[in-house]
C-alpha cells in the first residue's frame, strides 16, 4: 500500500497526468502532422488508383518501377466513388499518406486545384524526355487548370456504338445517324417480346456524361458563353430525343441504370444497341460474362442534326498530392507510367492511352478489334474535350442537368423540367463562378 500511496502522491499524480497528456498530444500531433522531413528509405510510395484495367496492368509491372526508383510501392485500387471519398477525407486533413493520385480531370481537377490539393507539374512535364506535346490536344488541355498542369492523362475515352451484327443486317447495317438509331431501336423492340432496341445509362447524374455526345451532335453544349446552355432549342431537342429513345426502346427501370446495370443487359443479348465508353469493349468479348461475343459490332457515334460530335476525354489522369513528402518519386512514377514506352505497351494490351504516337502506330492498335479501332480513331478525330459541365461542383451540376433526362425517360413532358433546370443551372453557375473567384 505504501508503494501505491507514494506513486499517487500529489506530485506523482501530476506527473502521471502530464505524461498522459504529453503522450496523447504527441500521438495526435504526429498523426496530424502534415510536414516534416523526408520519409525514411523504407517508407513506400503510396499510389491510389481506380480499379481499372490500366491500374491492374501497371500493378503487374510495378516491380520494374520499384527496382528503378529503389523504393517500395503500395498501390491501392478502389472504385471511383470510394476513391473520391478517400481523397476528400485524406486531403481535408492535409494527409501525407497518398503520393500519386489517380483523378478524373473533368470531375475533380478543378475543385482539387481550387483547394490546392494537386501539385503543379508544369515544370516537370516540360522535360523533353517526357514529350508532353505527344499527348492528344483535348486530354492535354483538360489537364491544365488556371494555367498550371495539374495532372497527366493516362486513359482516354470516347463513346462507341455497340450493336448486334446479326440483327442489323436487314436494317442496312449499323445506324449512321441518330434518327436511324431511333428507328432501328424501335423496330427491333417491336419484333420480340422482352427484347429492347436500345440500352443506355438513365441515372440522373450517371447518364449526363454519355448524353453529352447526343447534346453536342444536336448542336448544344452545357454552358454557352459562360451561361446555361441547357435551355437552348438544341439542348431541348437532345433531351427529348434521349428520353424517347430509352422510354420507347429501353428496358424497364432505365432511370436506375448506370454502366453497371446497362452493360449486362447488352452482354446478355437482351438489347440491340448500346452507346457507352469504348474502353469497356472487352466485357463483350469475355465468354464468362458475354453472350454476344460472336455477334457484337462496333461503330462510330452516329451523326445528329449538327453532325457526329462525340466526346473524347481523359477519363483518368495522374496527379501528385501537394502534401506528399515523396513528390520527386511520385513524379518518377508518373514519368514511367505515362511515358511513351508504357503507353505503347498498355495500348498493345487494349487499353486506350492519350499519346498521339501510340495511336499512329498500327502495332499498338492490333489488340483492338479492327472495327472498334476504326470507330475509336474516327471518334477521336471528331471528339469534343469534355463530357460534363466544366465547373467546380461537378456533382451538383450533373444533378441539375440530369433532371430533364429522367423526366424524358419516364415519359413526362421534358420542356417544363428543362425550364426549371435551366433556371437552377443559371443560378448555380453564378454561385460556382463566385466560388472560383474566392
Amino acid at each position: 500500500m505504501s508503494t501505491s500511496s507514494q506513486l499517487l502522491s500529489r506530485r506523482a499524480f501530476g506527473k502521471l497526468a502530464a505524461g498522459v497528456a504529453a503522450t496523447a498530444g504527441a500521438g495526435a500531433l504526429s498523426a496530424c502532422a502534415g510536414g516534416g522531413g523526408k520519409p525514411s528509405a523504407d517508407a513506400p510510395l503510396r499510389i491510389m488508383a481506380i480499379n481499372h484495367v490500366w491500374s491492374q496492368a501497371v500493378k503487374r509491372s510495378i516491380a520494374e518501377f520499384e527496382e528503378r526508383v529503389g523504393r517500395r510501392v503500395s498501390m491501392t485500387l478502389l472504385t471511383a466513388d470510394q476513391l473520391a471519398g478517400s481523397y476528400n477525407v485524406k486531403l481535408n486533413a492535409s494527409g501525407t499518406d497518398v503520393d500519386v493520385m489517380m483523378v478524373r480531370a473533368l470531375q475533380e481537377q478543378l475543385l482539387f486545384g481550387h483547394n490546392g490539393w494537386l501539385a503543379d507539374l508544369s515544370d516537370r512535364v516540360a522535360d523533353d524526355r517526357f514529350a508532353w506535346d505527344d499527348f492528344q490536344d483535348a486530354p492535354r488541355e483538360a489537364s491544365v487548370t488556371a494555367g498550371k498542369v495539374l495532372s497527366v492523362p493516362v486513359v482516354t475515352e470516347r463513346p462507341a456504338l455497340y450493336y448486334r451484327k446479326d440483327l442489323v443486317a436487314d436494317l442496312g447495317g449499323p445506324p449512321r445517324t441518330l434518327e436511324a438509331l431511333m428507328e432501328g431501336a424501335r423496330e427491333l423492340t417491336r419484333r420480340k417480346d422482352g427484347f429492347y432496341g436500345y440500352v443506355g445509362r438513365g441515372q440522373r447524374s450517371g447518364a449526363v456524361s454519355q448524353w453529352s455526345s447526343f447534346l453536342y451532335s444536336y448542336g448544344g453544349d452545357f454552358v454557352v458563353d459562360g451561361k446555361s446552355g441547357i435551355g437552348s432549342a438544341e439542348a431541348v431537342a437532345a433531351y427529348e430525343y434521349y428520353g424517347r429513345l430509352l422510354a420507347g426502346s429501353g428496358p424497364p427501370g432505365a432511370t436506375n441504370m448506370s454502366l453497371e446495370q446497362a452493360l449486362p443487359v447488352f452482354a446478355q443479348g437482351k438489347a440491340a444497341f448500346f452507346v457507352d465508353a469504348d474502353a469497356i469493349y472487352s466485357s463483350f468479348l469475355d465468354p464468362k460474362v458475354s453472350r454476344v461475343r460472336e455477334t457484337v459490332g462496333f461503330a462510330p457515334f452516329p451523326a445528329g442534326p449538327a453532325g457526329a460530335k462525340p466526346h473524347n476525354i481523359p477519363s483518368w489522369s495522374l496527379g501528385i498530392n501537394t502534401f506528399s513528402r515523396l513528390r520527386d518519386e511520385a513524379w518518377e512514377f508518373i514519368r514511367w507510367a505515362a511515358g511513351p514506352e508504357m503507353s505503347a505497351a498498355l495500348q498493345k494490351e487494349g487499353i486506350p492511352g492519350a499519346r498521339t504516337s501510340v495511336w499512329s502506330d498500327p502495332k499498338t492498335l492490333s489488340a483492338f478489334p479492327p472495327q472498334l479501332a476504326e470507330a475509336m480513331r474516327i471518334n477521336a478525330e471528331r471528339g469534343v474535350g469534355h463530357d460534363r459541365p466544366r465547373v467546380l461542383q461537378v456533382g451538383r451540376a450533373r444533378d441539375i442537368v440530369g433532371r430533364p433526362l429522367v423526366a424524358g425517360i419516364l415519359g413526362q413532358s421534358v420542356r417544363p423540367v428543362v425550364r426549371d433546370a435551366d433556371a437552377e443551372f443559371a443560378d448555380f453557375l453564378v454561385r460556382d463562378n463566385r466560388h472560383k473567384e474566392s
Partner: protein
Amino acid sequence: MPATETTETRGVAADDRSATARTRRSAPSRGGRRQRTFEQANRRLKWAMLAPAVLFVGLMIVFPLVFTLNLSLTDAFGAVNADSAHIGLRNFGDALGDTRRFWPAARRTLVFTVGAVALETVLGLALAMLMRKPFKGMRWVRTVLIIPLLATPVAIGILWLLILDPTNGIANHLLEAVGLPRQEFLGSVGQSLPTLMLIDVWQWTPMMTLLLLAGLTTLPEEPEEAALMDGANAWQRFRHVILPMLGPTLATALVLRAVDALKTFDLLYATKGAGGGSDFEVETLNVYAYGLTFDYQEYGLAAAVLVLFTLFIIGVVVLLRRRGGRKNA
C-alpha cells in the same frame, strides 16, 4: 418521520466524523496517516482510472460535435480547412427553406422509419410469440432467423439489387412463372422506397424477434394462468396480460430500432446511389447530408443538415420514450 430520522442520522454521522478528526489531530498516529494517504490516493486513483474514458469521449464525441456545430455556422466550401466566414444561422435557414431536397428528404426519413419499424415490430412480436414455447427444430429456426443480421447492409443491398433487377433478376422470372406481371422494383421511382422498406423489414425483423423473445421469457407465468382460469381466450390473454407486461421491453426495442432505421444509409446508397435515385426517390436526410459533403463539398450546409438531423433523432427518441413511459405508468 423519515426526513427527521435522516437528518438525525446525518447529524450523528457528522458528529462522529468531527470526533474522529479531533482524535486524529490531537493524537496523530502512523496508522492514521497511512489511512489518510490511502484515502487521498484512492480519490486520485478514481480520476486516473476515469481519465482515459473521459479523454476518449472528449476526443471522439465532444470534439466532432463541437466541430460540426461550428462548421454549420460557416460558409465552408470545397475543403473543410479552406478559408471560410461565419455566417450565423444562414445555413439553417437555407436548409429549412429548401422544399426541393430537405423537406422531401425529411418526409422520406420519417416514412421509411415509421413504415419499416411498424412492420418489424408486428412481425417480430408475432414470431416471438410463436417461438415462445419450445418446439421441434427451434434451434434450427433461430439460426436461420439471424442469418440476415449477420450480413453487411451493402452486401444485402447488392444481393437484392441482383434479385430484383427488372430485366435479368430472378424475382421477375418467379412472378412470370406464377402468372403475375413483371415489376420494376428498385428501377421504379414509385416502387423504390416501399421495396427498400421491405428489404429493411427482411433484415431487421429477426432482431426485433430476438429482443422481444428475451422479454417474453422473463415474464411471470402466473398472470397468464390466472387469466386462463378466468376464461380469457388467447387474444384476450395477449392483449390484456402479455402486452402490458411486455411494455418496457417493447419500448426499448422500438427506440433502438427506430434510431437505427432513422440513420439507415448503406442500404439506400448501395441500391440507389448518390442522391437516392434519379428522382431523389429514396433520398433521406442521411443520404442528403452525405451528398452535400462528398458530392457537392458544401461542408457548412451539410453540417447544418446534420445538426438538424441530430435534433430530429433526439426529438423522435424523446417522443418514443415519453409515450413508452406513459403506457408503462
